[in-house]
């Protein structure tokens, strides 16, 4: 009959390993998801349908960065980012797209179709960090 002491120790070690693996997955998911969101907003993404930012001088495009756990953008002296996002021009007229790349509503489509980005990232990270409980040396 197996010793109950060795069984409980092995089980605790397995739980610890699962916890470590999960923590690694969460950390990598956070980082990769932020990068995917930034890509979707700036360059467009087939999974969200976002067209990316139109580019004239690149001021708005270059202003978008990751800061901590947020996407950040600030333009001085006048933040025209919201108007590019909604496609609103002077007098409220539709903004004409004069850029060869990008379009409008990238932030909106990224936000509303975020779940596909999240699922792709989760599957990738999960594949990189599977639970491997068979090798006792790793415990």
């Amino acid at each position: 009959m197996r010793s109950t002491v060795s069984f409980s120790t092995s089980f605790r070690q397995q739980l610890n390993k699962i916890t470590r693996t999960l923590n690694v997955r969460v950390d990598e998911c956070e980082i990769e998801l932020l990068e995917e969101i930034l890509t979707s907003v700036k360059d467009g993404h087939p999974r969200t349908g976002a067209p990316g930012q139109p580019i004239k001088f690149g001021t708005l495009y270059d202003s978008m960065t990751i800061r901590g756990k947020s996407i950040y953008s600030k333009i001085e002296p006048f933040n025209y980012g919201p108007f590019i996002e909604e496609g609103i021009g002077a007098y409220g007229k539709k903004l004409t797209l004069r850029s060869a790349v990008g379009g409008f509503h990238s932030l909106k489509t990224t936000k509303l179709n975020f779940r596909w980005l999240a699922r792709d990232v989760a599957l990738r990270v999960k594949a990189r960090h599977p639970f491997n409980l068979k090798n006792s040396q790793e415990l």
Partner: protein
Amino acid sequence: MIDHHAVLLAARNRLLGVEVCTTGATTLTATGTGFTRAAGSFITDGFKVGMEVVPTGFADNTPAVILSVSALAITLRSTRTAETAAGGRTLTVGIPPYRVWENTDFEPVDDRWFIDEDYIPGPTEQFTIGPQGHLEHAPIYVVKVFGISGSGVGALYDVTKEILGVFPPRYTMTLADSTVVRVRSQPAPYSSQLMQVDPGRAVVTVSIPLLVRTTNPV
């Protein structure tokens, strides 16, 4: 496959059913600067400063923007021809008469509301297995409501609230080919922060995420 034109028309048709507030058919008088009534209350009916009111039953039914409102009187930002009291008249606030549909030209008119629609087809993904697996599409219907700046938030917020009200989460619209268009619940429709647009306008954007499932025509 999804017929984006049909989806757009279905959403647009739904939008046109929005009614924000109305007097109903009643006795109204047109003064040189607005409208008055002897019974009932414009305030109770829901009229607010900044709203664009559409009159019917008058000789002059030109829409105009409200400057001030009390229970028995509405003062407009523009003048109009005075008309004596008569029954069967209405004042209504709904989707503005000026509508900028996709790929149509429009010059904004001073002191007049308008809406501007955008339709984003969105991504498509197969979500059931096999060659004939079903496809899931995620278009977004966007309505930008342009009001008058400097008139507070009540008017714009009331109009956008009613637009959201006709697109509640899980609401379905059935197209002629039996395709079902569903308003998403996660995330659900939402409106944006009010933004000032030069000159003289304020805008709130309403975003309505939709979900459509079709068969794969392969």
